[in-house]
């Protein structure tokens, strides 16, 4: 193995380097200068994102435990873009007096989880996959409890670590069955011998249950709302967008490459879970008044739509899922960005507080409206294309009734997304949130979302690139 081989792992290595660098720089900063770390991290991460996009090596390392292909690279790049936006959006919050002491901790924890997700996506065997999953999860709990002096945040951290530990346990149990029955942990070897013996089916169910926890699919979603509400909003956005996106990526890769021989079994299961997830997520989202809780349930419903793409079980399915996650990153971060901007300045996070927002803060309201429309799948914004292609994938496998249920669910979701629009544009308020001007980083973060929401849909090139990369990964 030469030094050159390490370029295959440039995402992981570079980010590890950045994380260590942040730690060192932080040690040398005086307490009053701690916030200088923010622009440094932004620049470093921006460089990392750019380097990530440079054409790079593909290949297998560590005897097949680590795999890098054009597809995994684009998945990592998609996550990178999302994280970059989050870094910009969280500046105001990080500078607040409560957090001034521990700014660099936020970045280090964030990057650690991201490294974990990289390894998870690139894993070529279940051991590496599990390692990545754990690296991604444990710092996440620390992040959720970041503002630990607030009871809710501490509670969120505990809830996240407990439910994650449980789900990891379940998953690990499943993996042990897989190893026991196939004698291997490598994806390729497992895939060759996997069949429908009852022990192997049980192993699969455990594995899937563990993943369902991470993506918060119904009935494994119960931790989501509390954690999302309790955690600081910039962590919540990270949880709901990046973490969920990464887990969806690896789920679809493993389902398509490892468990394709029992596809006929998991398709029925996912069919049911998709319906449950969409419907339950929607029904609960309707009644939420807290914006973070509201977005939590809406993101549960969105996860249900992702399952439709997985059900497609072909190149269209793969492409549509990756494309949807990309679109979802921008739409959801747009919504979270507005919530975070308002929360950082006014401390308000209830939907009622948004009444009459358009009169005082028209730009924020418009961005929120765009994000809501994009999440609901209304043209001409990107969310429409994302959803449409997911439905196309499901229809390509002949699931017309499921598509109908999904589209009707999308209509129901439109109801609660419109409630937010209604609050901002139509409801009257004696004391609306006063006009305020966000600082530059926040505005950059929001602008990036606007661009993404508008451009991604019409710019078909992106879809085509993802589609061309998805060929070959699908084995059936």
């Amino acid at each position, binding site marked *: 193995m030469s030094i050159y081989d390490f370029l295959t792992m440039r995402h992981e290595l570079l980010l590890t380097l950045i994380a260590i660098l942040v730690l060192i720089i932080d040690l040398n900063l005086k307490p009053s200068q701690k916030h200088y770390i923010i622009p440094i991290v932004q620049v470093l991460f921006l460089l990392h994102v750019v380097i990530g996009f440079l054409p790079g090596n593909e290949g297998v390392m560590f005897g097949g435990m680590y795999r890098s292909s054009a597809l995994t690279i684009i998945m990592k790049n998609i996550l990178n873009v999302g994280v970059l936006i989050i870094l910009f959006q969280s500046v105001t919050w990080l500078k607040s007096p409560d957090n001034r002491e521990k700014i660099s901790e936020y970045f280090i924890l964030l990057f650690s989880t991201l490294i974990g997700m990289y390894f998870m996506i690139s894993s070529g065997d279940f051991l590496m996959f599990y390692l990545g999953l754990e690296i991604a999860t444990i710092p996440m709990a620390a992040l959720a409890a970041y503002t630990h002096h607030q009871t809710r945040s501490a509670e969120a951290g505990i809830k996240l670590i407990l439910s994650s530990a449980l789900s990891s346990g379940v998953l690990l149990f499943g993996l042990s069955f897989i190893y026991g029955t196939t004698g291997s942990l490598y994806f390729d070897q497992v895939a060759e011998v996997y069949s429908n013996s009852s022990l192997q089916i049980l192993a699969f169910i455990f594995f899937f249950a563990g993943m369902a926890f991470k993506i918060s699919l119904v009935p494994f979603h119960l931790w989501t709302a509390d954690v999302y509400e309790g955690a600081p909003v910039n962590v919540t956005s990270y949880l709901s967008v990046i973490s969920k996106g990464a887990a969806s990526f690896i789920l679809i890769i493993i389902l398509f490459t490892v468990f394709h021989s029992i596809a006929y079994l998991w398709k029925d299961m996912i069919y049911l879970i998709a319906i449950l997830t969409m419907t339950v997520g929607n029904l609960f989202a309707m009644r939420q008044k807290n914006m973070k809780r509201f977005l939590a349930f809406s993101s549960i419903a969105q996860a249900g739509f992702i399952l439709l793409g997985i059900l497609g079980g072909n190149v269209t399915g793969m492409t549509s899922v990756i494309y949807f996650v990309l679109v979802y990153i921008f739409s959801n971060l747009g919504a979270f960005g507005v919530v975070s901007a308002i929360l950082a300045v006014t401390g308000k996070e209830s939907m009622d507080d948004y009444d009459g927002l358009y009169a005082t803060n028209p730009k924020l309201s418009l961005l929120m409206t765009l994000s809501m429309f994009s999440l609901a799948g209304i043209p001409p914004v990107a969310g*429409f294309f994302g959803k449409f292609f997911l439905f196309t994938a499901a229809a390509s496998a002949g699931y017309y009734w499921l598509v109908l249920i999904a*589209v009707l669910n999308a209509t129901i979701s439109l109801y609660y997304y419109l409630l937010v629009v209604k609050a901002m544009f139509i409801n009257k308020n004696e004391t609306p949130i006063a006009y305020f001007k966000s600082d530059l980083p926040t505005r950059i973060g929001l602008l990036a979302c606007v661009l993404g929401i508008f451009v991604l849909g019409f710019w*078909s090139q992106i879809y085509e690139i993802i589609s061309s990369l998805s060929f070959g990964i699908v084995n059936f």
Partner: protein
Amino acid sequence: MNILSLFVLVPVLTIVAIVFTKNMKQTRLVSAIGMGIQLVLAAVLIFMYLSERNAGNTATMLFMYDAVWFPTLNIHYTIGVDGISVAMIGLTAIVVFAGVFASWMVEYLSREFFISLILLSSGVFGFFISLDLFTMFLFYEIAVIPMYLLIGIWGSGPKEYSAMKLTLMLMAGSALIMVGLLGIYFNSAPDGGPLNWNLMDISKITIPIEMQRFLFPFTFIGFGILGALFPFHTWSPDGHASAPTAVSMLHAGVLMKLGGYGAFRVAIFLMPEAAHEQAWIFIILTAISVVYGAFGAIWQKDLKYINAYSSVSHCGLVLFAVLMMNETALNGAIIQMISHGLMTALFFALIGMIYGRTHTRMVNEMGGLMKIIPFLGVAWVIGGLASLGLPGLSGFVAEMTVFIGAFQHTDVFHRVVTILAASSIVVTAVYILRVVGMLLFGPIKNEHFLHLEDAKWYERFSTITLIVSIAAIGLAPLWLSDMIGFSLGPIVQKLTGLPFASLF
């Protein structure tokens, strides 16, 4: 640049220009100019279309343009028009233009109002020029969604309820459409080969009959919801009653036609075999729409409700005619769409103007308005007479053609249903004359009404535009039906020759 693309581009540019305006006067001026250009473009398009046809161009679709959008899914941006779409584009241009003048005095958030209104119109134009099912669906949804804000912000009465009801019902309709379109796409190449979304290409093949049976109801009901198909019409009265004037005009005048046009262009044209088998169900439903809408209008006292129910009746007639699937009836359906679009827009405009003066829309609180505001009164009578089908105005031509077409079916079922539907003409006459009598004649019930002013210049402008168009179709229907007739040829060829399944 292709002339058809301009129909989407001009509204978009107008919206961009409106963003930079400073006050209401500039905003409405820019809107009027933008939509004026659009109207001129429509006139140019009609002229160009006719001269192409006179020059002997027999292609089904003219001014075609095609650009690949998503190659892997074979999604294209394909546009092109035949006589039917040209007629619909003309209608839309007229109604939007009149609508801008009818909302001349919108002061509250006027920029946002005109942006939403014009965004809606760009969706409608886009829908009528699209030949690619994906693009068509995209534009369809663009046309529906601004309605929520338009009714919710600028509406009256229980506007939030109505706006939500309307939006959700129409989006549920588009959910059905989406399933239908996906089904069509995945069955667009039954003999192998690439799947495609192109309307004209799909019309050349036969979708497997069992898939047609499954997909036709989705597609037809989906579009039918927007066309006020019974029992999915309930969004219409509430929505129209709460909407501001121009939005009612646009919605009843143009948007509901998207339903009829889509049901005809997509559902029936692409799946004629299933359409023949299942037509009887929908013929019954549409006949109920026609009669029920007319009776509903009799009971109402609110002018907007009256007109909304009347729209349910008239749009029901469009779907009714479309389901008859012969040349005469289809011709009638298209003329009915245009005729109803114009006269309902006229009605809603007049209702808005009268309401702006009397501050009530209840017929029983008004009376004798003809003496006070003669211009509006006369315009109302003209609209009313067109609506009840007086010869010389557009309504007569349309309804006559529809019923002749429907009567060409010789079996008992079609005859009975046609007679029932035709009875709505009488009911229509009852409610129209009743309203005219109560509103315009008789004693003046409220002395405040004595000082009302007659129509302002912009109101006259809006009204006259519509009246002239109505009279033009009524007096010279032949050029319109020629234009439509030529394009109906290939469609009818695909539809006829198949037996109807029916009850009797």
